[in-house]
């Protein structure tokens, strides 16, 4: 055996011993081995961590099944992968430890909650959900959350370990200072003192008596600027506040509120960088939880009035930060109170004293900012944390601030009148959604890899799945706003927009959607064999199809829809007939047909639609009052109408459209409050309109158009807070038949311009609204060309400016180039009517070049070819007028060339 041993790799022998000890429950240290066997130290350092990583993989397994649950934990030594090193703080809600994450060999802060903190499974779910969301926050001023865990009934929360001091400590230090006890900035002085003290405490191996301060090492005295003390002091306070407000704004944009902003949750680092900690722990701040925990006063003191009444919102965080700054600046809490009752009363009914009445040297502007942040009514506060941050920045930089000084009793400001819906449309939110989608999508994608196996774990696994799907859906839901933000891309549809709302996808959005797609695709594949998850699989395929369709990958979308339809059909066969499954099946077929339509396979499309229709009709005859099916049937009819039109069967097409409209009219009448049905009806009219127009008396088609417009007008009236209805209306009003505009049409175009103008005034930088405005302006210029050429030119210029900016911002979106080309063409026409031929030629050339870009990105599109060709002919005409016959001839032959490339119309 000795011989054998000598032939074995010595490090492997040590490793075997190391593992054996670990498995026996010992805690052997890599360092010890490296010291004891110095000749192998390098290899030990290299290989042992990899061994631990492997062991952890196995450990996960035994944790979930084998380990008995200990009921009581006297002294924590280890939590999963985390070796507890020491306690570094405790608060009412938990104990914070410094720990070593062994697999990653790094120091972390682990906050452990007592069992009462997370009582029932609902609480637990919420804890996990919020922690997952908080884990998606990546901001320089937010303490990174690594995750949550559970062991032996103890739940814990893992965060980055920080080098800093709690702001509550700094405030306490400031309060203890005598007025002339300092030279230099008192905050700097206090900061240094605390660190010194902490250093001693650490050496004595005692536990720092602080809440949530995660680690402390020797501080570095921050660099001083050469300003007067006061200036520096107030500027520093503003700067701390600004950092926190920016972090809050970021979190709010991600849909996360903190709900417990207070000095002890803000940690100041040596470079005066602030970290907000405890994101994702909002659940611990519920009324009943607080009443059970010890730290009642410490938490209540910073709670906003609306939070005390159980209605927290993002502006509650602004309030909490405002109170914190109040306390930091005045060195006294805004509300004092020794017990729960008196604090609640004070917070709800009284205003704190003006800061300058306590601390007269405080600059007026800083007081104004703080008072605005802590207004009792949320609507009187800063509208967003960003506004708050901006004002603090202005103050710090000696710029005039935005907040107006108002009496303490009438702090209603104009900000409060702003529509709260605005927040949901802000660009920041969209960006936030993207970020968290990436983060969470990545996590869940990994989780999904092993779904097949998870299935056998029964209910728990399915709950897990539902959670994964749920969070994915939620995030994609947020994404809808991004899709909504861009207008529909008509592409090769010259005269009509799509029935399904289809929006332009930017490269940026596309990459995120790809992530989501991978998730759904994997999900669907992995579960294809599990009967229990068939429905989820079918839904996943459907979602994958929707994403692919938005990405313009029609053939991939087709196969996803086919699989969805197939899976649903199988469900139909095995399960009892039910309206839900039927409508889902038909929905998948309808989407499939739509793709076939988009790819010119009209006969195939019609076949799928027939199948969907007959399924829905059967179901509707079996189950009365099946709105889901009726709604889907209407959408099927609309698609049939469009397909039949392309198949040159106009009478049948009209019938289908009429049927769709009738069904939706019925649904809207029965459910007058359902905005969805009304919107669908408006859109059905919109599709019916051009076809009716071609087949009937124009007066009749005009009625249809009016009907659509009036539904949208009503929606705008009923939901003034939904800007998209206004946009939809503006878009509808600019759909005219062309030719001589009637006075009524002119009035509607004016209305469209007005609506789009308002939208753009209220919301900056929403591409869809900018496009609506540009289109309306361009159309208005066109119809007023003869009567008012001067204002027409102004319109053209504005439209062109808008579209040029969009093209610069989204060079990868072909639609914007097509739009700009069309607008330039109209601009050019107006100029040529005014006799400004050379300018007209320049613009038309630009238009042609935009068309070329569009054509290059959509070479298969007949619309692109057609437009390319007509633009060239327009240019040729202008060149002829200018006497440049040779160039004109060249343009014409190029136009013919493009025209020939155009596939024959069906």
């Amino acid at each position: 055996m000795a011989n054998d041993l000598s032939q074995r790799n010595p490090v492997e022998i040590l490793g075997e011993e190391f593992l054996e000890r670990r498995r026996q429950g010992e805690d052997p240290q890599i360092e010890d081995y490296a010291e004891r066997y110095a000749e192998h130290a390098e290899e030990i350092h290299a290989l042992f961590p990899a061994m631990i990583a492997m062991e952890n993989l196995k450990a996960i397994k035994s944790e979930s099944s084998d380990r008995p649950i200990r009921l009581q934990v006297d002294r924590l030594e280890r939590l999963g992968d985390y070796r507890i090193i020491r306690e570094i703080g405790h608060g009412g809600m938990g104990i914070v430890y410094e720990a070593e994450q062994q697999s990653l060999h790094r120091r972390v802060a682990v906050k452990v909650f007592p069992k009462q903190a997370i009582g029932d499974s609902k609480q637990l779910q919420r804890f996990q959900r919020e922690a997952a969301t908080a884990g998606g926050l990546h901001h320089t001023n937010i303490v990174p959350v690594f995750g949550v865990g559970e062991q032996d009934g103890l739940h814990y929360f893992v965060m980055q370990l920080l080098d800093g001091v709690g702001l509550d400590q700094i405030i306490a230090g400031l309060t203890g200072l005598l007025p002339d006890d300092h030279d230099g900035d008192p905050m700097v002085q206090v900061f240094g003192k605390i660190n010194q003290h902490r250093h001693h405490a650490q050496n004595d191996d005692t536990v720092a008596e602080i809440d949530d301060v995660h680690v402390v090492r020797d501080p570095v005295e921050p660099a001083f600027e050469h300003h007067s003390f006061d200036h520096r002091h107030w500027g520093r306070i503003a700067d701390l506040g600004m950092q926190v407000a920016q972090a809050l704004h970021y979190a709010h944009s991600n849909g996360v509120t903190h709900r417990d902003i207070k000095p002890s949750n803000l940690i100041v680092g040596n470079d005066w960088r602030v970290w907000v900690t405890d994101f994702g722990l909002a659940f611990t701040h519920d009324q009943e939880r607080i009443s059970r925990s010890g730290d009642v006063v410490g938490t209540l003191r910073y709670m906003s009035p609306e939070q005390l009444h159980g209605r927290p919102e993002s502006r509650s965080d602004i309030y909490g930060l405002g109170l914190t700054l109040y306390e930091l600046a005045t060195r006294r809490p805004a509300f004092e109170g020794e017990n729960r009752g008196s604090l609640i009363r004070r917070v709800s009914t009284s205003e704190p004293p003006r800061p300058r009445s306590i601390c007269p040297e405080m600059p007026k502007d800083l007081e104004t900012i703080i008072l605005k942040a802590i207004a009792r009514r949320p609507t009187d506060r800063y509208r967003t944390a960003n506004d708050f941050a901006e004002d603090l920045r202005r103050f710090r930089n000696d710029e005039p601030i935005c907040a107006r000084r108002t009496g303490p009793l009438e702090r209603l400001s104009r900000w409060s009148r702003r529509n709260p819906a605005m927040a949901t449309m802000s660009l920041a939110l969209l960006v936030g959604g993207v970020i968290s989608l990436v983060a969470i999508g990545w996590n869940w994608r990994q989780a999904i890899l092993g779904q097949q196996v998870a299935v056998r774990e029964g209910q728990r696994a399915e709950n897990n799945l539902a959670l994964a799907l749920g969070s994915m859906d939620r995030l994609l839901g947020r994404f809808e706003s991004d899709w909504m933000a861009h207008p529909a891309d008509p592409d090769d549809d010259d005269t009509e927009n799509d029935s399904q709302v289809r929006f332009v996808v930017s490269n940026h959005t596309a990459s995120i959607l790809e992530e989501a797609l991978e998730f759904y695709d994997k999900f669907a594949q992995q579960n294809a064999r599990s009967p229990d998850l068939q429905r989820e699989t079918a839904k996943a395929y459907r979602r994958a199809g929707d994403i692919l369709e938005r990405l313009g990958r029609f053939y991939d979308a087709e196969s996803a829809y086919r699989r969805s339809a197939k899976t649903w059909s199988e469900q139909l066969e095995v399960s009892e007939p039910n309206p839900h499954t039927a409508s889902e099946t038909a929905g998948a077929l309808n989407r499939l047909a739509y793709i076939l339509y988009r790819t010119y396979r009209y006969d195939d499309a019609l076949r799928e639609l027939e199948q969907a229709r007959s399924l829905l009709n059967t179901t509707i005859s079996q189950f009365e009052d099946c709105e889901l099916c009726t709604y889907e049937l209407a959408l099927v009819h609309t698609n049939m109408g469009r397909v039949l039109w392309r198949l040159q069967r106009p009478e049948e097409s009209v019938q289908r459209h009429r049927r769709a409209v009738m069904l939706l009219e019925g649904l809207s009448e029965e459910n007058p409050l359902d905005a969805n049905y009304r919107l669908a009806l408006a859109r059905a009219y919109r599709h019916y309109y051009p076809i009716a127009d071609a087949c009937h008396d124009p007066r009749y088609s005009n009625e249809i158009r009016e009907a659509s417009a009036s539904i949208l007008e009503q929606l705008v009236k009923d939901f003034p807070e939904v800007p998209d209805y206004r946009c939809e209306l503006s878009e509808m009003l600019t759909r005219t038949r062309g030719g001589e505009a009637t006075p009524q049409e002119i009035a509607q175009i004016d209305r469209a311009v007005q609506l789009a103008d308002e939208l753009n005034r209220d919301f900056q930088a929403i591409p869809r609204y900018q496009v609506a405005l540009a289109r309306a302006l361009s159309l208005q210029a066109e119809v007023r060309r003869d009567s008012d050429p001067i204002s027409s030119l102004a319109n053209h210029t504005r439209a062109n400016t808008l579209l040029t900016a969009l093209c610069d911002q989204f060079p990868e979106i072909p639609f914007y180039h097509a739009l700009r080309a069309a607008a330039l063409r109209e601009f050019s026409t107006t100029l040529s009517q005014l006799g400004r031929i050379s300018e007209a030629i320049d613009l038309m050339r630009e238009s042609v070049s935009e068309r070329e870009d569009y054509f290059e990105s959509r070479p298969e599109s007949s619309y692109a070819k057609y437009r390319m060709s007509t633009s060239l002919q327009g240019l040729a005409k202008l060149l002829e007028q200018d006497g440049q016959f040779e160039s004109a001839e060249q343009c014409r032959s190029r136009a013919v060339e493009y025209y020939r490339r155009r596939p024959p119309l069906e």
Partner: protein
Amino acid sequence: MSDSELAPTVPSDPDERTFAEQFTEYRPRLKRMLQFRIDPRLSSRTDLSDVLQESYIDAFRRLEHFQSKPGMSMYVWLRQITLQRLIDIHRLHLKADKRNIQNEVRLQQQAASSAVIAAHLVDVMISPSQVAIRQEMVSQTESALDQLDEIDREVLALRHFEELTNGEVAQVLDISEAAASNRYVRALTRLRKDLEKIPDFFDGE
């Protein structure tokens, strides 16, 4: 059901009683081996305790065979028999696609395919909280494992998932102890290298 409930009832035959005791001792390891190697598609309809029960019977019948092989570790021998059972099950259930039987069985013999490892990993991370907390480490290790070749993965699986000693690994793979030792170190070195490519995996002190 816990393992103890499923342990064979105490046999009257003294030989069998001794064997039953030995088997019971190895049972958790054998079960873990099965969990690790069973095809995910079969895991929902296969009760591993049944597989172990059948392996027990097989092994007892062939006890003489084992006794005629001096130097063979008991665990390694039991593992072989249990693995054979598993291969039979795969053959039985996956016969629908004849062409694939060979592949499936071979896959199981190779065992540590990264797909199975990945499934194994996620299998155990069934609670969302665990998913969240382990995600980073697990996915990183998993993708690193993916980079290794089959023999390296197998060696690591045997040493860590099945907790085999170096000597047992040598027997299972039918190689010398020195070779087993060197292979393990080589596999660890490669794993380490792949993990190193991941930012922050080993830093952060």
